[in-house]
């Protein structure tokens, strides 16, 4: 859902730039407090994995494709703010080096995928974990559903930005974006759960998950 240049009005592009710059600044301050020595390689590797996985478009119905956003995965591995920072770096490199997503639209893309994506995933994950419990199955199902939510809500934000910009009316853009991304979100959920199950099996101690699950079950 990388928005190219030309789809957003100057007002929407500028205001999302301001919000995203503030969001990244806040995320960086929060992340700085949380980052320990052992997290540093994990942050690099998570961001690198998300970049590589975002290149792998998978087909969904009707000649359309989608790819991982990775916000939920980053949030669970790194925590919401460090996760948002990691996804922001991926989206910024994609725009600057690979011309994926416009330069003027970069603020909106960071806002939708990194900030809204990670925060939605965080809230959904926290809520679902309370219902589904701290078991391995509970973690994986919560992660998959949170990943689905994060993609759908991020796409709704993109639709709203298109509508405010006068590119496509909300009544057209919102159902189309949400409907398509409800399908793409299934792939997002599946990939998130598979990667997470690998990490749970090998280096559970690296996860931010146990911290959150302890809080949630207390």
């Amino acid at each position: 859902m990388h928005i190219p240049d030309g789809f957003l009005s100057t007002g929407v592009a500028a205001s999302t730039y301001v919000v995203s710059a503030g969001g990244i600044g806040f995320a960086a301050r929060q992340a700085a407090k949380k980052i320990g020595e052992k997290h540093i390689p994990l942050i690099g590797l998570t961001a690198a994995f998300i970049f590589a996985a975002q290149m792998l478009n998978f087909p969904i119905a009707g000649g359309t494709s989608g790819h991982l956003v990775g916000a939920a995965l980053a949030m669970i591995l790194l925590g919401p703010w460090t996760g948002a920072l990691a996804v922001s770096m991926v989206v910024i490199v994609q725009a600057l080096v690979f011309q994926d997503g416009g330069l003027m639209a970069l603020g909106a893309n960071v806002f939708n995928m990194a900030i809204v994506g990670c925060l939605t995933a965080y809230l959904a994950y926290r809520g679902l974990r309370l219902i589904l419990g701290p078991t391995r199955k509970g973690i994986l199902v919560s992660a998959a559903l949170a990943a689905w939510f994060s993609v759908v809500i991020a796409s709704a934000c993109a639709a709203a930005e298109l509508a405010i910009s006068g590119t496509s009316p909300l009544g057209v853009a919102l159902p189309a974006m949400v409907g398509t991304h409800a399908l793409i979100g299934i792939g997002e959920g599946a990939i998130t759960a598979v990667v997470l199950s690998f990490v749970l099996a090998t280096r559970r101690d690296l996860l931010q998950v146990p911290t959150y699950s302890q809080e949630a079950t207390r």
Partner: protein
Amino acid sequence: MKFRLKWWHAAVFLILVVACLSPLASSSPDGLERIAEDKGFIDKAQDAPYHVIGDYVFPWIHNDALATILAGIVGVVIVLVLAYAVSRLLRAANRGSQ
């Protein structure tokens, strides 16, 4: 010195495998592109003012699959180094301020 396999070796290997799979990616338009085509606003899209590794195809390489894999590996290295460096700087800044 004895070589011992660490978790991050496996992670780097997995990431490189994913990057090498990139030529297999679906070339269909993504969700937003498809909607822009269907709803008739795709023409509003403007091309980037410059291209470095545009569209994930490494320039000057004539084999498409190889050009995509190279673009993927370059991107992985850039993102890895950037995210590693930023987190190291943030940690250093936080420790410095305490």
